[in-house]
């Protein structure tokens, strides 16, 4: 009868779905951005190639969403934190970047997805078991403490450091939350 820490295969641990989701969102974002910022689209003469890239990009983003849904269905909520960090860093929702067309649509869509992701994550956490909620509470507390400390350190060297961007702050907090979660999980689940 088992008593040690649970052992998982790569797929059961969630690492595989995490990788699929990262590749899907990064690849999809790159393809879709390339399609909508293509010179032929800008001049109003989109080619079949532009449409193909757009469809492939959206399909890839859909695949990334399915992989994230698989993680959520398996109750592997902690993987959603680094996934959100990767997506924030690479896709920068709400920021149109060098797009010359559809800037507003792209920005609003990104913000809507971000808000939806936060609401879904909060709902998932409310449905998880009490230890999982405690792990996330301690992880988020660690991230908050880290954020305050980092902000004070940044303020000290503000004149010599590059301008801080909102996406970097959000990514740092998410990574700190995940790190706090992993440290706390190890403390509760593994016999010393």
């Amino acid at each position, binding site marked *: *009868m*088992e*008593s*040690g*820490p*649970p052992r998982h295969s790569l797929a059961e641990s969630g690492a595989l779905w995490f990788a699929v989701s990262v590749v899907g969102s990064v690849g999809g974002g790159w393809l879709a951005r390339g399609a909508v910022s293509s010179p032929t689209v800008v001049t109003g003469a989109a080619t079949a190639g532009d449409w193909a890239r757009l469809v492939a990009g959206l399909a890839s983003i859909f695949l990334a969403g399915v992989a994230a849904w698989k993680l959520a269905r398996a*109750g592997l909520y902690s993987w959603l934190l680094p996934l959100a960090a990767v997506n924030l860093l690479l896709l920068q929702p709400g920021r149109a970047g060098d797009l010359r067309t559809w800037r507003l649509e792209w920005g609003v869509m990104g913000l809507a997805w971000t808000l939806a992701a936060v609401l879904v994550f909060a709902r998932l956490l409310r449905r998880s*078991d*009490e*230890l*999982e909620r*405690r792990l996330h509470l301690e992880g988020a507390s660690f991230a908050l403490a880290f954020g305050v400390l980092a902000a004070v350190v940044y303020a000290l060297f503000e004149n010599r450091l590059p301008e801080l961007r909102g996406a970097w702050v959000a990514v740092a907090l998410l990574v700190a939350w995940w790190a706090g979660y992993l440290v706390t*999980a190890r*403390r*509760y*689940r*593994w*016999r010393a």
Partner: protein
Amino acid sequence: MKNRLRVLRAERDWSQAELADQLSVSRQTVNAIENERYDPSLPLAFTIAKLFRLRIEDVFTPDA
């Protein structure tokens, strides 16, 4: 807090996963309680005691 969860579970020949299913928690939670790394909430402690048809103090005892 000390507990007899591992002994009670072994008496019934249940795996951690089976006990976790009956308590609607994860196997990690059962493992953490058995290893006395995590003290369950009062509602979960009552649910555990009810499942084993025992009083809560027959399952959990405070540290001396």
